[in-house]
C-alpha cells in the first residue's frame, strides 16, 4: 500500500515538489534530455525538430547532478529569434511625451511687468548693498581721522600787537616750541643781503618769512633736537648750547653740526585783527 502511494505521488506530483535535507530541490523523474515530438501537432509552428528558440544542447544548458540542478553555458548561444509579436498585453502605453497639464489659466498674460519687477527688485538689493558697503568703508576711515580735541589744539593764535620790535616770543604749538621774532629793519637787511647760495642748506630769506618783519620757526635744533637760545651765536641769531650750532637772523644753519635750517611751520597772518595763526 505504501509503495503504491509512493508510485502515485511520483506520477501525479510536480517533479520539484520535494526538497532534500540539504535544501536542494529534488527532481527525481525530470528528463532534461527530452525532445519535441517528431510530428507536427497541428498549431502551425512549422516542422518539428530542435526548437529554434532554444539554444542547442552542446551550447550548455541545465543538467542534473547529485547536488541538484546545474546550469552551465559553454559558448555564446545565438539569441532566440522570436518573430511573434505579442499584441495582447496589459502594460501601460508608452507615449512620446508626458502629458502636461494646461497651465494657461495660471500664466501671466503679459510677462513684461514681471520681468521689470524682477530686475527692479534685484537692482534695489544692489543699491542697498552698495550703500551699506560705502557707509561701512567711510565710517571705518573716519575712525582714523583726528578727533575734534586734536583738531582744536592743532592751531595756535598769537596776538602780534603785543610783541615789540626786536623781541623774541616762544610759544608752544603741538608740543614743540615756536620762535616768533619781530625783526628790526637792520636785521631784515642783514638776512636778505647774505649770500645764501653758499650756505649749508641754501634758502633765501624771502622763502622763510612771509612778512619780512615776522620770522616764525620751530625752535628745535635740526641736529639733535635741543632748543636753541635766542639772540646768541656768531651771527646774531640763535645758538644751540648742546653741540654749538649757530643760526643766523633768518634761522639758517651757518656753523656747527646742524645740517638744515630751522623749520618754518605753516602759518598765516590775520591782518584785520593783527594775529598770527600757526597750523
Amino acid at each position, binding site marked *: 500500500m505504501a509503495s503504491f502511494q509512493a508510485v502515485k505521488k511520483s506520477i501525479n506530483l510536480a517533479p520539484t515538489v520535494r526538497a532534500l535535507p540539504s535544501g536542494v530541490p529534488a527532481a527525481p523523474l525530470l528528463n532534461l534530455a527530452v525532445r519535441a515530438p517528431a510530428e507536427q501537432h497541428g498549431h502551425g509552428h512549422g516542422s518539428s525538430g530542435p526548437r529554434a528558440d532554444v539554444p542547442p544542447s552542446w551550447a550548455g544548458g541545465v543538467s542534473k547532478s547529485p547536488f541538484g540542478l546545474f546550469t552551465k553555458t559553454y559558448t555564446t548561444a545565438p539569441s532566440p529569434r522570436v518573430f511573434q509579436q505579442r499584441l495582447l498585453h496589459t502594460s501601460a502605453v508608452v507615449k512620446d511625451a508626458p502629458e502636461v497639464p494646461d497651465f494657461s489659466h495660471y500664466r501671466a498674460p*503679459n510677462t*513684461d511687468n514681471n*520681468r521689470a519687477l524682477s530686475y*527692479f527688485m534685484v537692482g534695489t538689493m544692489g*543699491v542697498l548693498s552698495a550703500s551699506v558697503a560705502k557707509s561701512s568703508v567711510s565710517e571705518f576711515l573716519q575712525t582714523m581721522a583726528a578727533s575734534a580735541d586734536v583738531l582744536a589744539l592743532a592751531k595756535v593764535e598769537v596776538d602780534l600787537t603785543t610783541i615789540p620790535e626786536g623781541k623774541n616770543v616762544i610759544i608752544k604749538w603741538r608740543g614743540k616750541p615756536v620762535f616768533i621774532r619781530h625783526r628790526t629793519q637792520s636785521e631784515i637787511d642783514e638776512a636778505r643781503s647774505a649770500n645764501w647760495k653758499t650756505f649749508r642748506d641754501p634758502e633765501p630769506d624771502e622763502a622763510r618769512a612771509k612778512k619780512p618783519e615776522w620770522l616764525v620757526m620751530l625752535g628745535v635744533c635740526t641736529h639733535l633736537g635741543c632748543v636753541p637760545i635766542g639772540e646768541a651765536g656768531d651771527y646774531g641769531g640763535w645758538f644751540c648750547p648742546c653741540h654749538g650750532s649757530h643760526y643766523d637772523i633768518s634761522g639758517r644753519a651757518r656753523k656747527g653740526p646742524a645740517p638744515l635750517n630751522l623749520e618754518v611751520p605753516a602759518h598765516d597772518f590775520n591782518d584785520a585783527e593783527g594775529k598770527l595763526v600757526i597750523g
Partner: protein
Amino acid sequence: MSFAITAYNTIFKRNSVYVGSVFAAAFAFGIGFDSGVTAFWDSWNRGRQWKDIRHKYVQDEE
C-alpha cells in the same frame, strides 16, 4: 505696461547701464537717507540743540 517695457529697454537691458544706474542710485540714496535722518533728528530734538538756543547766550556784535 509701457512703463515696464521702457524701463527694461533703458536700464535693465545692458548690464553696464544696469550696474551704473545701481551705483548712481546708491549715491543718491545715501545722500537722501543722510539728509532725511538729519532732518528727523533735528525735528525730534527741536529746542534742545545748541543751534536752537545759541541766540539766547551769544549776541553777535553788529
